[in-house]
């Protein structure tokens, strides 16, 4: 079968107008890292956190949550075969994030809620993925010709309410899934972009937002991230067209492993269509059980 290409990714967090006008910092944080794994091909880890505006150290909390998530993925997932990933692992990751935030709060002699932030995380292996979410924002993955949200953003009863990893009952609201399917494209976004990238009535990802966003990334031939794409993404996120629709901080991570589109390959790999040379074009249903045959 045609192996998936290398991961190419781009990510940026940009302050919203609300923060620019009062001189405070961007409280969104995001990161992407490739981890060497002993039991599988390298893993791609993506994480984004949105620090609560009312929390004194929401931005610090978001930074810490992302760092802990990356570290714990390396510790706990890189050495475990993806077929053995379970939702319990996601709960452990959340626990670690909460422990670190509690520690930071203790050191600063303040309450953990001062570090309140949301958390979106994904770990992707060749044929498996583990995704988790607390709070608003969304994780969006490819679904044939379209894109779909893995979870719908968690809002409370009202649009200006959500859940945070620092909530006492955070574990209750942890949403997680172990997907036994080869994810080819994934996006993570914080709530600042929700109204642009999601369709509320259909409760689904808005494909016309994502499809063109992934094009330049698919065209990139070298693996990893590139400075020019990162700059272009940050520029887009800070553009008047986006700011007209949202005053909040906004984060977008995009990652693809579609084989790079080149002039000659274009015919073989039309945009958003499974390569015909792939003997297993239809993604496995997003069942949560393992598909042993797919183990690498």
């Amino acid at each position: 079968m045609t192996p998936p290409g290398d991961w190419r990714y781009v990510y940026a967090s940009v302050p919203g107008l609300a923060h620019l006008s009062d001189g405070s910092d961007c409280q969104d944080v995001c990161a992407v890292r490739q981890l060497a794994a002993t039991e599988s091909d390298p893993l791609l880890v993506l994480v984004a956190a949105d620090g609560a505006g009312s929390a004194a150290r929401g931005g610090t909390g978001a930074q810490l949550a992302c760092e802990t998530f990356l570290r714990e993925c390396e510790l706990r997932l890189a050495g475990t075969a993806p077929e053995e990933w379970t939702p319990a692992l996601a709960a452990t990751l959340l626990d670690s994030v909460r422990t670190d935030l509690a520690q930071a709060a203790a050191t600063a002699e303040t309450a953990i809620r001062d570090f309140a932030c949301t958390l979106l995380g994904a770990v992707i292996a060749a044929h498996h993925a583990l995704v988790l979410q607390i709070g608003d924002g969304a994780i969006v993955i490819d679904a044939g010709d379209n894109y779909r949200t893995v979870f719908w953003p968690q809002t409370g009863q009202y649009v200006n309410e959500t859940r945070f990893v620092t909530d006492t009952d955070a574990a209750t609201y942890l949403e997680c899934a172990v997907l036994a399917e080869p994810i080819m494209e994934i996006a993570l976004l914080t709530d600042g972009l929700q109204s642009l990238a999601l369709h509320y009535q259909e409760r689904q990802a808005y494909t016309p937002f994502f499809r063109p966003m992934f094009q330049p990334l698919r065209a990139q031939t070298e693996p990893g991230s590139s400075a020019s794409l990162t700059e272009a993404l940050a520029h887009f996120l800070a553009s008047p067209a986006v700011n007209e629709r949202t005053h909040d901080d906004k984060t977008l991570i995009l990652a693809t492993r579609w084989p790079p589109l080149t002039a000659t390959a274009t015919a073989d790999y039309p945009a958003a269509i499974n390569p015909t040379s792939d003997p297993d074009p239809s993604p496995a249903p997003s069942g949560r059980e393992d598909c042993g045959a797919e183990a690498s």
Partner: protein
Amino acid sequence: MNEFDLSRQTPFGVDFSVAEFADNPEPRCPCVLLLDNSWSMSGQPIAELNEGLATFKEELMADSLAAKRVEIAIVSFGPVHVVNEFQTAERFAPPHLTAEKDTPMGLAISKGLELLNQRKALYREHGIPFFRPWVFLITDGTPTDDWKPAASQVRQGEDSRAFAFFAVGVEGANLDILQQISLRQPLRLRGLRFRELFQWLSNSMRSVSRSVPGTEVPLINPTQPDGWASV
């Protein structure tokens, strides 16, 4: 090939702005006004109230976001009459109320909450996000109907956080009963400062309608020395 296409071909001209944005409705911030137009409001009080309503519209319109997000419904009582169904501030036409008869406050509250429930059902049906609704009662009298069922509806609604209920007594109002209806301390309007009251209400709605998760909604205390209210 036009210039736009050319720019997309250049390797360093990567442009993410070709992304299309979803066309979602603005989140809504519903506000129900329950206004006493009983006979005792005749003369200056009702005139000042009407001016206050016009101010309310003007002030909301001065904020482009609030103009699209704040939705206003008005139920007058004296007798109970739905003066305005829910409309965004942009479309809201301030009514001209006249003082009429009695003070059926209980029925007015129930009617207002019924309108609110219908509106919320509509929001949910269409996937329209919304903020916690405000119900704002202004009266200068004593209820002339059985207000106790309405009072328990208000308590239930506050307990489930279905809305926030505020009561304001104009001179002559029975604050003792208002206290039994509203969980929040009823406020006494200073003189006929309806204009300042509605400026405060529009400011509050502006704050609520732009609030994001994890952020405190800053509200100005209306009982400070130069405010419109006293406890």
